[in-house]
């Protein structure tokens, strides 16, 4: 863990050296998120609600999903671009170091420019929460934190899976974006608005339903079942098959590059 943070610190210093490029990147990612949430706002201007859900409730989910996605992009960037590590044979170097291969691959890169988006998502969450009537208590705060942890864990799992597939395909697969980018888009809306087959996939295979539906029902007082609040914990189960695939991948690895 100490090594991880030290590596990250070095990478941050590196990026701050190119100031103009850095500022433009921050403006860029800020603009995308701003225009995305504006688009959601436009839709609610036209339709007022989706299913039982209002704009601020959806905005809250949007904020939470994008916040954790940005955190994943920031801290797990190395996994996101793992095909580069495989392609130029750098993974050989990783294997001979006395640290876990997964940990090293994770901190190969660090993208600070996502910081703009991060703050923006926090702002969106705060604005949404102010406008939603919630009876806050200690348990609900815990639920809120659990939801965010769960959301991050799902993205972590997806990123590991995405990287692990590179062991077989060498190149990155556009197909894998369905889970990361697509999941992000899907999870913006509570999963009860989708058709049944779609809902089942995003609850039991990619478990977004565990963070963006059941705990939200409890948090917003739409359901009284207190145990809905601890459901996000089960996202950790999703990590098990992901890490397993990674381990099999490492065994399968044959060096490339020169």
């Amino acid at each position: 863990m100490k090594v991880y943070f030290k590596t990250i610190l070095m990478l941050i210093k590196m990026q701050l050296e190119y100031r103009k490029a850095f500022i433009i990147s921050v403006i860029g990612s800020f603009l995308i998120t701003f225009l995305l949430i504006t688009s959601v706002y436009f839709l609610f201007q036209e339709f007022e609600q989706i299913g039982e859900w209002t704009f601020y409730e959806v905005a809250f989910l949007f904020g939470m999903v994008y916040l954790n996605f940005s955190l994943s992009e920031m801290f797990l960037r190395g996994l996101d671009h793992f095909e580069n590590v495989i392609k130029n044979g750098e993974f050989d170097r990783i294997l001979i170091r006395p640290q876990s291969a997964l940990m090293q691959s994770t901190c190969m890169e660090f993208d600070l420019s996502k910081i703009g988006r991060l703050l923006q998502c926090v702002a969106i969450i705060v604005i949404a929460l102010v406008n939603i009537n919630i009876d806050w208590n200690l348990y609900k705060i815990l639920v809120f934190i659990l939801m965010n942890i769960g959301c991050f864990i799902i993205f972590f799992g997806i990123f590991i899976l995405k990287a692990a597939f590179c062991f077989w395909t060498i190149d990155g697969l556009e197909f894998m974006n369905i889970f990361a980018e697509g999941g992000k888009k899907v999870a913006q809306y509570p999963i009860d608005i989708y058709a049944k087959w779609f809902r089942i996939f995003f609850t039991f295979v990619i478990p977004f339903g565990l963070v963006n539906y059941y705990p939200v029902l409890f948090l917003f007082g739409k359901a009284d079942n207190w145990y809905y609040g601890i459901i996000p914990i089960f996202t950790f189960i999703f990590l098990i098959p992901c890490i397993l695939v990674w381990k099999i991948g490492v065994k399968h690895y044959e060096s490339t590059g020169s």
Partner: protein
Amino acid sequence: MKKYLSFFKLRLNIALQYRAAAIGGMLTQFFWAIMQILIYQAFYKVVTSENISLEQLISYLWLKQAFYTIISPSTDVEIRDMIEKGNISYELCKPTNIYWMWYFKTLANKIAGGFLKSIPILVIAPLLPAGLSLNAPAGIVEFILFLVSMFFAILLMAAIMNIFYISLFYTMSAKGTASIFYALVEFFGGTFVPVALMPKFWQGLCYILPFSLAADLPFRIYAGNIDLKSSLVYIVMQIIWLLIITISGTIITNRRLKKVVIQGG
């Protein structure tokens, strides 16, 4: 002209080689289209929009996905690297105009990748169960106008992308500039939310700017969401924008190339 055409053919062949990637991309496209349709179905369950019917919107979403490669602001890594890493010096040695070289390169990539990707959707989407399927065009006249506006949309989008490459000479940050460009084109082009569903003021703004003329207009014409008279007006606007962007693009490129600084070592 001949040298540009043979260059165009060369790029076309290269782009067609990536067939495996195209299959993965195809699955992604179907996923995106169906997901969006599911979301809008949920919206329409409560209130129906007066601006566009659900059937029209579904056709619109399918077509948009089908031709996404053509109308999306995806950038060419080779050209980006040329500017950022200094390979542009080789390019400048060639006896060709760099603006048109890049223009035809972008066009070839978009057309080869784009039409290949559109075929599966155009074949499969009309066969899906009702309420999820791509409908036939609103009429023969609409279909012809769709083809005409699509033709100009492709040219216009390639010209817009060229403006992006030129702007790299000034910002020198491909990643950041690309994301700003992406945000503007996707938002005003109606990819984040279809222009027809935006508030009135924003709709007006969208149709003054070139982005929605390139990325939104043809599909609305196909779905029958715009009456014939306004369609013609918008097509004329496409041509005007095409001229403005191409001419200003060439002028800026030529001026900038006189004082270009080669990056890298």
